[in-house]
């Protein structure tokens, strides 16, 4: 056990608003200084999490991300700025965090979290914050935290809705004494009187797999890049995560362990759901292949029922006289931002089969979306209906705007 670091006089001045809180005080602030937190992701959720944890004086903060700052991040990722566009996010984050608070250590991991490195990284920290944006990494973070016995502060967002909880921490639900031998009538009565579960502050809490045993198959739930996200939403959820993190370190208050908080930004409502331990959950004994678990397979294994075409090749062939029927499968809001001027028809990919009758069977059909994911689904759906001359525009309209017609805006 390394020796506990004490607060310097500069730090005492800096943290005075904490120090005069009875629940924090010098003792609590010293706990924060000696604590370490790993934040997985430096995006919309990671931004407020990292800034508030740094400002609060968490002594060692780990940051893992492999992305670079893009202009389209800045609508919500307030950790980064216009001056760091193109800079690796971990570098951009480090500079900002040390500007907020030079009294802390920042540990950078400029790599994707994987089944190979997760245990080695997670075990170096006291608390882990899940600020990721995809299902495979969420299950990986969860399982690594369970295996390393670390609390996992969860937050997730979509469009106008957010979720937050605390996983793998103390505070959970147990059945009352005698439950196993109780009759069906007795259990029913207990349930009616809300005595069928008891919250215990010492009981190990549930984890992500108790909340959702399995991820959705790819494509069934739209992503934020497809569905959009209100920029402030990750700010709200990320602040809740930072708050839970501080409470866990200080050992104060009641965390979200055993509860799932759902936030609806449009109707301004917070709702709380009870999160019980799932009796059907399989024990987590080792890390697995999370891409496979989430139904994501390498591209070469896919057998497509349609052709793919790059923006370069499509542009070249059009110059040589190729005249495909062009179908845009994005939504109206996206089409308003930017559209190709040679589009013949637009129909959202989820409803593409409804307009199949309007598509020519004796002509090539070029299908595009923003980046090529939804258009691939649309192509597959149309191929099922017997269309054979389908081309999916790889890279979508964003690729077209970057490589062919650079006058077009990207989003």
């Amino acid at each position, binding site marked *: 056990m390394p020796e506990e670091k004490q607060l310097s006089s500069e730090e005492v001045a800096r943290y005075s608003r904490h120090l005069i809180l009875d629940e924090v005080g010098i003792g609590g602030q010293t706990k924060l200084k000696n604590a370490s937190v790993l934040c997985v992701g430096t995006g919309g959720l990671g931004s407020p999490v990292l800034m508030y944890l740094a400002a609060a004086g968490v002594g060692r903060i780990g940051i893992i991300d492999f992305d670079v700052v893009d202009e389209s991040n800045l609508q919500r990722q307030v950790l980064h700025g216009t001056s760091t566009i193109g800079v690796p996010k971990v570098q951009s984050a480090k500079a900002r965090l040390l500007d907020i608070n030079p009294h802390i250590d920042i540990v950078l991991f400029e790599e994707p979290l994987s089944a190979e490195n997760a245990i080695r990284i997670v075990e170096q920290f006291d608390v882990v914050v899940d600020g990721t*944006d*995809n299902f495979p990494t969420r299950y990986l973070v969860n399982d690594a935290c369970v295996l390393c016995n670390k609390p996992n502060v969860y937050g*997730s967002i979509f469009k106008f*809705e957010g979720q937050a909880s605390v996983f793998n921490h103390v505070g959970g639900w147990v059945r009352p004494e005698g439950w196993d031998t109780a009759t069906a009538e007795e259990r029913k009565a207990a*349930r009616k009187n809300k005595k069928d579960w008891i919250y215990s502050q010492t009981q190990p809490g549930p984890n992500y797999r108790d909340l959702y045993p399995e991820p959705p198959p790819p494509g069934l739930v739209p992503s934020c890049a497809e*569905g959009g996200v209100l920029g402030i939403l990750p700010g709200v959820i990320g602040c809740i995560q930072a708050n839970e993190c501080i409470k866990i370190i200080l050992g104060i208050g009641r965390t979200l362990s055993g509860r799932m908080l759902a936030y609806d930004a449009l*109707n301004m409502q917070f709702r709380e759901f009870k999160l*019980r331990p799932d009796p059907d959950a399989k024990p987590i004994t080792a890390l697995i292949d999370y891409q496979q678990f989430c139904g994501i397979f390498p591209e070469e294994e896919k057998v497509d029922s349609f052709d793919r075409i790059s923006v370069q090749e499509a542009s070249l062939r059009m110059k040589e006289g190729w005249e495909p029927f062009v179908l845009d499968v994005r939504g109206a809001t996206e089409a308003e931002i930017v559209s190709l001027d040679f589009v013949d028809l637009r129909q959202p990919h*989820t409803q593409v089969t409804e307009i199949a009758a309007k598509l020519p069977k004796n002509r090539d059909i070029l299908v595009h979306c923003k980046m090529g994911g939804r258009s691939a689904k649309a192509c597959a759906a149309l191929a099922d209906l017997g269309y054979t001359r389908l081309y999916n525009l790889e890279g979508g309209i964003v690729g077209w705007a970057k490589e062919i017609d650079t006058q077009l805006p990207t989003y």
Partner: protein
Amino acid sequence: MITIRIPTPLRAYTEGKAKVNVSGAKVQEALDALMATYPQLSKHLLNSEGQLRSFINIYVGDEDIRFLDKGETELLDGDELSIIPSIAGGQGA
């Protein structure tokens, strides 16, 4: 009457409605009534065997039906059902 709250990703299949009122004495009956009104919801709520998908949670009030009697959970007039799907965030096509 039972109120079912529809999450954002599924509102595309309920004509944009955030709340739908149905009748039903059990969770399964209420969900069946919902899917009868909005048939497009079925493939999002149920798998090919007709079972509720494992990344969609249904709550009666604040209780997950997995820890009650699942589809057989009895409902009282005025109960609120919430459909809470798993969400991940940003990455995608």
